[in-house]
């Protein structure tokens, strides 16, 4: 393959359009690489899904890519199937095509010579990123920007079978067998779920409330239905990855977590297990949707800082 051409006025990065095969769909991506002295870390930028494209709002992904290149860090930003320039129809799912898409993008970035990956997932984009990332050993960290860890309404929740599938699958069982930290977390989680379930049953018996009766809504944190991708997040945290959850104080996705006692407890448990592995960053304002230019800049600096931390190089003024 010949050397790609410099396409911008700056001589610090190269940008190349790519098409990636993702199952039966073709994804569009832009690969940004430094001109010289690249690190072994690659950054994958995953946008929020529908109504978005590779550059993200206000070109934030483009800006991050070019500034990462100034730090010697290559990156890839891409369109999910059914968004931007990619083929297909977008489907909001926790498995299937979106996960295949992220996996294809991770593989493409690895194929450029990166040995470790930092994944940045915006809103929904964080969910398939976690699911795809847990199945591989090259993810060094993830920054999830306002991920919808608690879905609004029951319709958006995973079914009992889906949640069971999250826990009882080959990678999870392998992690239980081989990773002591994960095993401890899993058993503690299992015990906690069993205790919660038993408590509910005992209360029902005591109050003689029919099992089918819908609980009355109440103010404050409700028992909730738990957190999406909890098992995957736990596996990533327990196996030494750096996971950072970034929210804004007025993000609906944060409010939903705070209003769901089960989800709040799950996150607290993970943070208690590995405080350095699960970092919780809350900006003042709304991070979701990146609808504030000043917050965009704060986010860019945070991502640059974390990426540089992982490479062991201090950020330069150019980045």
């Amino acid at each position, binding site marked *: 393959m010949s050397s790609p051409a410099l396409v911008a006025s700056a001589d610090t990065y190269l940008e190349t359009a790519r098409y990636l095969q993702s199952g039966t769909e073709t994804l569009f991506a832009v690969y940004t690489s430094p001109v010289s002295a690249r690190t072994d870390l690659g950054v994958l930028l995953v946008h929020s899904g529908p109504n978005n494209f590779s550059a993200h709002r206000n070109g934030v992904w483009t800006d991050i890519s070019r500034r990462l290149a100034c730090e010697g860090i290559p990156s890839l930003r891409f369109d999910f199937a*059914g968004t931007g320039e990619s083929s297909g129809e977008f489907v909001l799912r926790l498995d299937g095509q979106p996960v295949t898409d992220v996996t294809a993008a991770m593989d493409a970035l690895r194929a450029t010579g990166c040995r470790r990956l930092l994944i940045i997932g915006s809103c929904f984009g964080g969910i398939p990123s976690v699911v795809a990332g847990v199945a591989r050993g090259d993810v060094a960290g993830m920054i999830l920007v306002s991920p919808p860890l608690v879905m609004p309404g029951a319709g958006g929740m995973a079914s009992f079978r889906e949640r069971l599938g999250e826990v009882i699958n080959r990678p999870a069982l392998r992690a239980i067998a081989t990773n002591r930290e994960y095993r401890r977390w899993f058993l503690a989680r299992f015990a906690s779920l069993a205790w919660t379930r038993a408590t509910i049953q005992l209360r029902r018996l005591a109050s003689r409330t029919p099992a089918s009766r819908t609980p009355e809504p109440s103010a404050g944190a409700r028992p909730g239905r738990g957190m999406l991708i909890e098992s995957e997040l736990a596996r990533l945290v327990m196996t030494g990855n750096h996971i950072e959850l970034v929210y804004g104080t007025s993000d609906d996705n944060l409010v939903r977590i705070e209003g769901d006692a089960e989800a709040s407890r799950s996150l607290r448990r993970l943070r208690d297990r590995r405080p350095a592995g699960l970092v919780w960053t809350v900006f003042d304002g709304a991070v979701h949707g990146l609808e*504030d230019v000043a917050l965009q800049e704060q986010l860019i600096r945070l991502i640059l800082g974390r990426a540089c931390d992982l490479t062991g190089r201090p950020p330069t003024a150019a980045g």
Partner: protein
Amino acid sequence: MTTSANWPVAASGGKPQADVTVEPNGPVACAEASLVNSARTVVGTVLEDAGFLVRPDGALFVVLHRPVDRPPSGLLTVCSSLFAEQHTDYRREVCLARLLASAGVAVARFHYRSLGNSAPGPASLDAFTQDALDVTQAAQRLTSASRVAFLGVGVGSLVASRAWLAHPDAPLLLWKPVIDGAQYFRNLFRARLIAATRARGPRPAATDELLAKLVDEGHADVMGFTVTASLYASLVASRLTETLPGQPRRILLQPFRGARATSVERLAADWRARGCLVDLQPVKLAEDPWYIPDGAAVAASVHDTEEQFMANARDWLLSSWESGE
């Protein structure tokens, strides 16, 4: 307005990567038309090349859609909308491009300078118009298409209508056209208030304060998009009614339901009075005045109504070219 970009460009011949060397700040060091650092794919019966058009004004991100099995019968350049509206329109424009390419028409889509995947550069209506003309010229060379047309979407109508004047035989298509730049910004600033309320954020600065910031700092934040003073100044003074074609031209107006549609009838009458052949086809889709990306009007998938109005645009364009021969 001139099509002055005589920068040399390079041949790709379908290669996933271009074999060219481009000096920073300099012209491309080869002789034929091409997108550099490009990739190619086939979607159904459509060949798509995505890459960068390198020129002294900075590289533009361009996607060229064309039929896979035959030379295109013409070329349509899409001048997209801006800011949040560009995001909600994006997939619709990709779908139109694929529809037209499968009907034998090449379509050139691009990101204006300083936006999306294109290189940074000073943004203004003149600059964006030059971008549209440069892309059109390069796409014509790449496809050998002799017939050209322009599509303007939203505020991109102001760009498309100016680029259109440099191509005397080209038809013009406008989707939910912005007729008055000043009115466009008034509505955009109003949408900012709605967005802040929706996000439960603090009440944003009043419009006067925002405009003062534009003057003082050269840019301002509108719902997470950077609006530069040069872009604002050039757009706010622009009106579609001031686009004066020198000879009778063919125009298709496809307004959506909403505030902009009320002025479209008057625009059509104006242009007809100047001898233009104007077709007015209102579309049963709502404008999205608040740019809230979760309504049916902005869904990622293409609905029946969208397919119908795109098919109407395709049929109108093909018949315009045929009747112009």
